[in-house]
Structures are given as structure tokens and as C-alpha cells.
């Protein structure tokens, strides 16, 4: 009886190779996505926080569009643009022999597009909250505006930037619509955790596997959110805003 239930537990909690593959792929895609959007995200956040220029609200709208659109739309647009028959995709293939559609790189691009607005929102808020008085005093001490950005603005905005990156990372782990539309659901190549869960729910007897992946996904997402909270608190303390609860 006891032995029986232990072996049942064992089968419940043992991941199949396909499941492990989905987990690792998800991690790879999410990490790459975070790395890809870090610099453009900060640059865009800075642009939107500090500069005023013609067409700013249009740019702002475009950046945030993926947040409000059904994910299938960005996915479809990516397919039109970067698919093998797409505008850029065709050129990439004929010039460099590179194909993005239906590869894990495409999955990275899809989740980067979806995660970008989350990253920008958070970083933009953080950058705009940096006291401009500190930036001007740094300049009056002889620092070039670039140096001011890297030594004053960036460190002070870091908690918000880190939060943005973690949000984008979590978003990437959960990305479904744009990914499946743009790069399909290919096992070992583009079948990330959400896609694997979806696949198992469609299979007879796949419930247990789906549930295992659901638990894993929830754990990772929850962990990421808690981590962002801890990092933010620590960073805030480090820059000395006193006792932050």
C-alpha cells in the first residue's frame, strides 16, 4: 500500500524528457529575451522619460500596443514581417541564409515584443523619478551628460529597471499567443512551457503532465515576482532612501 503510493507520487512528480525539454527551452527563451530588451528598453525608457520630440505620443503608443492587443496580432504581424515570405524575413534568407520563423530565436523575438512595454513602463517611471537636481549638480561638477547618465541616472533608476526586466522575464515565460502564431508549436524548438501545457491539455491522458508544468510555471513566476520585490527593496535601501518597509 505504502510502496504503491510512493511509486504513484514518483510518477506524479517525475518529469518526462519532453517536459524537461520544454522547461529548459522556456528558460533559454526567457533569459535571451531579457538580455535582448535590456539595452533598447533602457534607451527607449530614457527617451520617453527625458525628451520631448515630434511624434512622441505615437512612439509611446506603438511601444505599448502589445500590452492591449490580443497577442495573436503581434504574432501575426511578426510572421508577415519576419516569416520566410515576409518583408524582412525574405531578405534575411536570401542575403544571409538565415531563417527566424519557426525557430527558438523567433520565440525570443515574439516574447521580446510582448515584454518590451512592461520593461519600458517600469524603467521609464524609474528614470523620470530621478531628481533632475542631482543630474544637474553632477554636470556642474564637470561630468559630461553621458557620464551623468551612467553614474547618476542609471544607478538611481536601477530598482525600477530591474523590476522591469523581471516583469519582462516573467512575461516571456508565459508568452503564448504571439509565439504560437509566429513560430508555431514545434517540440524541442519552439514548444515552451505554456505551449507544452496547451499541447498536453489537448492530448487524452495528458492532464497529469499539464498539471506538473502548471505547478512549475506558477512556482517560477511567483519566485520571479518575489525576487523582484526583494531586489527592489535592497536597491532602494542601498541608495539610502532611509528605512523602506
Amino acid at each position, binding site marked *: 500500500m505504502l510502496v504503491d503510493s510512493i511509486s504513484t507520487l514518483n510518477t506524479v512528480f517525475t518529469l518526462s524528457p519532453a517536459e524537461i525539454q520544454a522547461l529548459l527551452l522556456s528558460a533559454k527563451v526567457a533569459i535571451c529575451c531579457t538580455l535582448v530588451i535590456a539595452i533598447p528598453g533602457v534607451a527607449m525608457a530614457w527617451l520617453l522619460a527625458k525628451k520631448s520630440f515630434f511624434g512622441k505620443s505615437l512612439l509611446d503608443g506603438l511601444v505599448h500596443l502589445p500590452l492591449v492587443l490580443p497577442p495573436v496580432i503581434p504574432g501575426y504581424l511578426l510572421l508577415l514581417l519576419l516569416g520566410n515570405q515576409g518583408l524582412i524575413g525574405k531578405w534575411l534568407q536570401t542575403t544571409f541564409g538565415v531563417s527566424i520563423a519557426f525557430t527558438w530565436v523567433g520565440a525570443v523575438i515574439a516574447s521580446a515584443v510582448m515584454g518590451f512595454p512592461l520593461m519600458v513602463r517600469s524603467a521609464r517611471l524609474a528614470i523620470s523619478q530621478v531628481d533632475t537636481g542631482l543630474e544637474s549638480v553632477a554636470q*556642474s*561638477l*564637470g*561630468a*559630461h551628460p553621458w557620464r*551623468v547618465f551612467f553614474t*547618476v541616472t542609471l544607478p538611481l533608476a536601477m530598482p525600477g529597471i530591474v523590476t522591469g526586466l523581471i516583469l519582462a522575464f516573467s512575461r516571456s515565460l508565459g508568452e503564448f499567443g504571439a509565439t504560437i502564431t509566429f513560430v508555431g508549436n514545434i517540440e524541442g524548438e519552439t514548444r515552451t512551457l505554456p505551449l507544452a501545457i496547451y499541447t498536453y491539455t489537448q492530448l487524452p491522458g495528458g492532464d497529469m503532465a499539464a498539471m506538473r508544468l502548471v505547478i512549475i510555471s506558477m512556482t517560477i513566476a511567483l519566485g520571479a515576482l518575489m525576487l523582484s520585490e526583494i531586489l527592489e527593496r535592497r536597491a532602494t535601501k542601498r*541608495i*539610502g532612501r532611509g528605512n523602506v518597509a
Partner: protein
Amino acid sequence: MIDIDLQRTQGNFNLQAKCIINSPVAGLFGASGAGKSTLLGIIAGLIKPSAGHLILDGEYLFDNKRGIDIPLHQRRIGTVFQDSRLFPHLSICDNLNYGFNLVPQKNRRLGFAQIVELLEIGPLLTQKPYQLSGGEKQRVALGRALLTSPRLLLLDEPLASLDARLKQQILPFLRRVKDEINIPMIYVSHAIDEILYLTSQIIILEHGQLLANGNFHDIIHQDNVQNMAYSLGLENVIRAVVSKHELTYGYTELTQGKQTIVMPLITAGCGAPVTISIAASNVALSLSRLENISIQNQLQGVVTEIKQIGYRILVTVNMDECLIIAEVTAKARQSLGIRVGSQVYCLMKAQAIRPHGFITY
């Protein structure tokens, strides 16, 4: 030398300043909203003027006709703000080094250790800005600006956010900087006493216009400054010489012409010239010398002018070498029968006399 000829229009506010500053320390004085900080911001390079020029030691920093506008970070002008603006993510040591490290070795006129010692901030070096008191923060901000070896140091109400006790603690440091470090300074304040503690060279700004520029004692009597002086209780600004310190009773005796003036102890040697002031509202008039009264100063003179400004009646009394203005009520004037030519005594409490440029004990 700073040659200023600047204009800036923003909305209804029009700033117009044209002057030449030659003194090592100049005080920029004016009420809140007079345009002091705007003018300082323009000199620092934080605010863009509409027109004019700004020349520091022969170098053009701004000239709209020649299209010159040296950016903030290349001006080599240090600024200390009311809010110390220390970098919260850096230690005090790194804050001090921020600008210092950007100055080429050959341009450094002040050493790190020298400034740390001068401002007594050694024990703070490893701390973070949030651990410091307001006064300590301002000393660090001052040190940080000085360490860039600036050609000009701008102080924008550096004491405004401190309480009276802390002000008294910081002022001597500012004087030390003035005395020991040869860097020209412009000190902005709406507190005339603070300015006079550091310098007697004053620029007065009112509603964006430059009213006067020169020695405090000379300009305070100018007609266009009079209204401002009266509203500040600076109707009577007198130059006198210290003749005696009476430590037992805690007072200092001054000589002004033939008159003797008693005031609370000040830190000036015998024979030193001092500038004092007493508000007209603190001067009472009497037709005869009073015997049984605590007021020490009873100066005899002749009424030369009686002016009414609104309900204020200002009586000018001439005492050979100086004029003293007393404010009396219409009723008092009537009952005493004061008119031009009357012989009167000006009664002044010793405690009501303010020395300028000293810390009183």
C-alpha cells in the same frame, strides 16, 4: 571679474541684470521671487538667458550675438544648492571625489585632505548621505564643489533649509572658505545678516531688476533701496568703532562721532570698525534724558525731518555725524509736540542693536 549683462523673459517675469563684480565675495540679495536663483542659474549654466552676455575672467561663457553658450559641465563653476543634492547612492567620500576625479591633476588647486580638514568632514567619509544631518550635508556639498577647483563658486541659499542653530554652525565654515581659499564667490540669500557676515559687497535684486551694486553701507542709503531697507528694519545703518568690551556686564561700547553706543558683546577687537543697525521701530524718542530706565543708549540730537509713510511716522534725528530714524505713533508725536528743530533723545535698547558681519554671544 565677472561681467554680467543678461536678460531672460519667462511669462510675466522679466529678469534684467547688468553689472560687473570685482569683489572676491559678492552677496546677491533680494526677496523671494526677486530672480536671485534665476540669475544664479543662468551664471551656472542651468538656465538659458534670452539675450546678453556673461564673461568670467575674460572668457565668454554666454553671448547670444556671437552664438556662445558654454555647456554647464565645461564652465568650471561650482554650485552649492539649498538642498545639498548629495548623490544618495554614493558614500560621502565618493560624493567628494565625483568632481575631483574629473579635474586634471594640473588644474587641481585644492587637495582632498585639505578640504576634508577645512570643513571637518573626516569622520563622515564612510557614511551615506541619508545618515548625515542637514548641516553636515551642506558642508559635504560645499567640499564637493570646492574640490573641482572652480573658477567661481555659487552659493544658492545654502543655509535656507537649516535652523538658526545650524546656520550659526555653518557660517564660520563659509567664512573660513572665504578667508583661506582664494575662490571668488557669489552668495545668494534673502537674509541680509548672512550676507553681511561674509561680505559687504552687495547686489540687490527686486522684481527681476538690479537695484544696486556696491558696498552695503553706501547703497543702503540710496533712494531706490530705501523702501526695501525700511521693510527690512534697516532704516538705521551706522558705522562705528569698537572702543571697549565690558566682559563683566557683557556689553561692547562703540564710538560714533561724539556719541557712545552700548550693545551686546561682539567679537571684534578694540578700534575695529563695525557696521550696526537698529530698526526705526526700536528707537523711542524722549524730550529729556531719563534717569530711572533700563535703556542704556540715550543719544541727543535735533529733529531734521518728519515723514509719514502710510501710518508710519518716521522722525529723522541728526546727531552731528549720523542720522537716526525713529518710528513713533501719530499720537506720541502730537503729545510730545515734536517738530523739525526739536531737541530730542533717541532711546535704543542695547539688545535691539544688530551688528553686521559678526556672530553675537
